[in-house]
């Protein structure tokens, strides 16, 4: 919902906790939209959606590691 840079900045924020499922959902929605939207007839880049999906995945892996090893 925010601009893309703000999304990545928000994902790098330390204060965000307990939102693993939400971020997973967000990443999945972005990925599906990314796949289906590419190729429509507007000028459109694919750097930033890729970065958003990657940062969302990284956040999810961070959360999973936190669950496996709380230290």
């Amino acid at each position, binding site marked *: 919902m925010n*601009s893309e840079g703000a999304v990545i900045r928000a994902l790098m924020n330390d204060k965000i906790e307990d939102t693993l499922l939400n971020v997973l959902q967000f990443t999945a929605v972005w990925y599906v939209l990314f796949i289906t939207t*590419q190729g429509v007839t*507007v*000028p459109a880049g694919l750097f930033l959606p890729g970065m958003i999906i990657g940062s969302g*995945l990284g956040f999810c892996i961070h959360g999973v590691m936190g669950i496996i090893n709380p230290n």
Partner: protein
Amino acid sequence: MLDDGGSVWHAYYFWAGFSVICAFFGVMLTVYVGPGAMGSGVPEVMGLLNGVRYPKALDVATLFVKIIGVELAVLSNLAVGKEGPLVHIGAIIGAMSPYIPMDCFSPFRNDSDKRTFIAAGCSAGISAAFGAPIGGALFSYEISKPNTFWSFSMLWRVFFTSAMSTLTLGLLSELHQGIPLTLNSAAVLKFGEISYFDTPMFDAVIAIGMGIICGVLGAFFIYMYAALGAIRKKKIDTPFKKIAEVIFFSFISTSLFYWLSAACPICYPIN
């Protein structure tokens, strides 16, 4: 949040309407004014640098539609980024710069020098997008498969263009923020401050796993993109269908982002 007397719905109507209007104007521009501006433009620049002659990708209409249309596309909440078209914009400006009507530019009006200018413009676009002059020069080096026309003396020229682009962007953005001549912020996209700490060796394993996951997702994206592109080529052939498709995707994206955000009950401040 979902039951405060309909104001959520009013915001939704306004936002969806705004997105759809932006999508409509963007797709009208692209379909009727500059069809060469469709997509991200990186494949076009790649082809141009490797010897494909594609004049539609380098004319003034494409430049105009690219600049206006990418803003409209980002405003219309489509899942697209704004950094790819900067490469194309830079490449068009680079390809046009030998044709400035002055005498000192006439020696550059040949094919090889024009490609140098295109490479320089594309690296300037990348470095303006991410504030990364070295990354911009390397990107330009990578997408022009270097055995075709790249020469050693081009590298520092391209790097100089990227550095000037980053510097100009930094000066302008500081002017915009009201702190001129401090040279601290020089990127469209900034991640803010990151605190670093020691990384244990175990992180390498996680990094390998993340790389594998992202690679699989990317491969799946390429496969789906090719399949959907074939379907698009067959089914969506008239301008009306193209316009309807963009508006449909804009509406779907806006609705998904809006209602998922509304359904998520937690909110965090951004720094």
